[in-house]
């Protein structure tokens, strides 16, 4: 017994001595959590922010976004359009993959084709592309079917993969869901990025370590990164308070206040680039679940105006959102190219009498009834926002029957069908961020242009708003390479949909992250979280 005690004392002393003379390299482990796991290690498996941002730590893109979402060189040192339908990318020399093999133009061509190939979900970034080819050892050239000024913006999300590695491991294509085979790249990774994949246990933990041979000078000081999915928000908050994690990516709104009071925790809040809005059915001859037969009140601009100007977004911000929203009158947020600040003014709110009079002038002196669809697990407080809108519209005599349901049922109901015939809704909520291009054209094309089966425009214009003048402007801006002309088109088109009360833009929701006080990180407006900016003090 005595001997044991003395022995362990000696061991402790020895351990202390070793610690004090140990070299100054400190382990800086960064542990963080999110509600869900990264669904795949394959950078093209899904076009969703979380997967793209996580995998961009391992896979560098040609061009990356800096702290202000501006483009900056990554694997491409130079890029541009040599003529309207030709893009070139000059590849950075002396870059190595994590396995030590050099990056070549062949890897770039391979990766881009893989991202556009079967099983990949990134195909919509390649709609304009005709051919991708290597010209010289350090240059890749892309010819497009029509002038595409946004190609570089779109490709900032696409990471570059080692061709030799993919070929060796039978992962030349992304996992194809329609075939029953698993894919090596789903669980393994080989890029040139600032971090290397050390361990992947899907649903449990994913461990990254810094890439010692990264081409760029690291800003971070991490030696190890451990990511864990923690589905239950209360557990995430508790783990952060206990110090079991250093950062949580999604903070439930209800916990924000209590976290702010915590001494060792800081809460980071900022506007997200996604705009949440309400849409009207302006297409059907008759609204669904309505008492008005034979005509559609929403086709009348006066009715849309009365409703738009009766929705008090500031009240929604105060009550439902607990201050965590940024009201807007536009379909795009600041930070997106094409956001027009001087048009982002909501018209004055109407008093209920004024709105009622406006409805009466339009032929609805007793208001009308309409069904409304709303998700209850997609956007922050989505269902509560819709409930608030129902109450606001009840005051002007518009009776709204709300149906709120889970997103998997919701989107299947409201979105347009494969032949672009309208979905089953007359009044609905949607959120949108032009996450590929960070350019307003994507919003025009997807949400505001007239749905058209041949041109494939207006895919997400669920209410079928249609203005031929706007369609023309949107088509023209898609291919316009002169910036001044393009900006003028954007402004004109924005004015058209604002004046038409085409939609009711509500707000940008806040991105809320929380971290321990000793963590330095950068919060980006597109809700992406690059580890290369993280420092542990």
């Amino acid at each position: 017994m005595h001997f044991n005690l003395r022995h362990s004392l000696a061991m402790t002393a020895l351990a202390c001595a070793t610690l004090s003379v140990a070299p100054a390299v400190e382990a800086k482990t960064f542990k963080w959590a999110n509600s869900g796991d990264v669904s795949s290690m394959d950078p093209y498996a899904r076009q969703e922010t979380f997967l793209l941002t996580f995998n961009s730590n391992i896979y560098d893109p040609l061009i990356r976004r800096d702290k202000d979402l501006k483009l900056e060189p990554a694997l491409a040192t130079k890029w541009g359009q040599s003529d309207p339908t030709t893009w070139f990318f000059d590849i950075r020399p002396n870059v190595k993959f994590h396995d030590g093999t050099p990056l070549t133009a062949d890897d770039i061509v391979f990766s881009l084709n893989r991202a556009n190939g079967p099983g990949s979900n990134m195909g919509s970034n390649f709609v304009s592309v005709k051919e991708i080819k290597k010209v010289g050892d350090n240059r890749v050239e892309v010819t497009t079917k029509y002038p595409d000024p946004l190609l570089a913006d779109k490709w900032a999300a696409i990471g570059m993969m080692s061709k030799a590695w993919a070929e060796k491991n039978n992962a030349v294509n992304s996992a194809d869901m329609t075939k029953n085979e698993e894919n090596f790249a789903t669980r393994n990774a080989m890029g040139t990025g600032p971090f290397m994949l050390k361990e992947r246990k899907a649903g449990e933990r994913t461990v990254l370590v810094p890439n010692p041979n990264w081409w760029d000078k690291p800003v971070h000081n991490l030696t190890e990164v451990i990511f864990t999915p923690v589905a239950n928000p209360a557990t995430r908050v508790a783990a952060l308070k206990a110090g079991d994690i250093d950062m949580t990516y999604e903070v439930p709104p209800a916990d924000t206040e209590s976290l702010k009071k915590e001494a060792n925790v800081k809460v980071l809040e900022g506007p997200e680039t996604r705009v949440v809005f309400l849409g009207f059915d302006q297409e059907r001859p008759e609204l669904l679940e309505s008492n008005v037969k034979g005509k559609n009140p929403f086709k009348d601009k006066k009715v849309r105006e009365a409703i738009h100007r009766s929705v008090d977004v500031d009240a929604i911000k105060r009550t439902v959102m607990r201050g965590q929203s940024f009201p807007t009158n536009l379909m795009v947020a600041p930070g997106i190219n094409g956001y027009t600040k001087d048009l982002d003014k909501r018209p004055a709110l109407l008093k209920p009498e004024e709105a009622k009079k406006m409805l009466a002038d339009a032929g609805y002196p007793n208001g009308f009834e309409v069904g409304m669809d709303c998700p209850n697990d997609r956007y922050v407080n989505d269902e509560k926002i819709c409930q608030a809108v129902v109450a606001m519209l009840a005051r002007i005599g518009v009776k709204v029957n709300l149906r709120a349901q889970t997103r998997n049922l919701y989107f299947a109901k409201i979105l347009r069908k494969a032949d672009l015939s309208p979905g089953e809704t007359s009044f609905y909520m949607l959120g949108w961020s032009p996450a590929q291009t960070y350019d307003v054209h994507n919003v025009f094309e997807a949400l505001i242009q007239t749905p058209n089966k041949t041109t494939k425009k207006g895919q997400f214009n669920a209410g079928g708003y249609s203005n031929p003048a706007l369609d023309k402007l949107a088509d023209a801006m898609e291919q316009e390479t002169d910036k001044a002309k393009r900006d003028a088109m954007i402004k004109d088109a924005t004015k058209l949909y604002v004046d038409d009360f085409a939609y009711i833009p509500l707000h940008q929701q806040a991105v809320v992250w929380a971290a321990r006080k000793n963590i330095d990180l950068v919060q980006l407006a597109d809700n992406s979280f690059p580890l290369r900016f993280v420092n542990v003090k």
Partner: protein
Amino acid sequence: MLAFILRRILQSIAVLLAVGLVAFSLFRYVGDPINAMVGQDTTMEQREELRQKLGLNDPAPIQFAKFIANAARGNFGLSYRTSEPVGRMILERMPATLELSFCAALFALFVGVPMGVYTGLYPRHWTSRLLQAISLIGISLPTFLIGILLILIFAVSLHWLPSFGRGQTVQIGWWTTNFLTVKGLQALILPSITLGLFQLTLLMRLVRSEMLEVMRADYIKFARARGLTNRAINFGHALKNTLVPVITVTGLQLGALIAFAIVTETVFAWPGVGQLFIQSVQFSDIPVMAAYLLLIGLLFVLINLTVDLLYFAVDPRLRGGGLARAGGH
């Protein structure tokens, strides 16, 4: 005997098929997985194409038949969420769930039974009343709340135990275990208590009422008259006779522990099959949900089959052949 076993196995298969069919008819109500599978900008045409290729437009019975045909060959398909093989996903998460359920069962057994014995022997003592009152918590508080409370006390305030996860695990073949590291064992404590608390209460109350009954029996009085020690009477005679129902209940509850680990696993971010199931529901990940439900169905069927066979071995009255009609357990 053989006929009985065969009949039972056939019935079990019928039960499994019924579970699968019900599951598949329910899947249409969990929504469309496509919108979660593809990017925001995927056109409606491409979405419809994928839906068609995955067979999501087929009627439920056809989807079910395809699933069973593949499952019979050991192929459960790829997860819609992670594009990994479902069979492997479940197999990888199984050890976490089994170890957690095992520890919860041990906790319930080795704390619940002594508590039951004690409260049964001294029903009027104040400590018994206290234990009884405390055990009410196990029944009345939802698992979710108990888990969060334990985390707040032992992880956030006291910093004694980790707030979530499996801690450190050791890989032995395909099995990952918590039992070989200190951190792994620490991580097991809170979730096991959370999961086992309800069963503990159940066992305690069961043992207590059995003990109360047995202690009034004649053979206990005779044992006392023979001058045996209290210890011999309480444990040698009384407890032994209460154990038959306890063992039955424990066996049946083990299935429930595995099946209902869902909530505990979610609260503690425990990477087991329950958590996998919850994630899959949110995503409408039909292949995973189907495989999980079949697995749980299989588990219950196996447990019931075992119990039936045990009864058959224990109770000679059942060998008359009229078992199916005797029923009623």
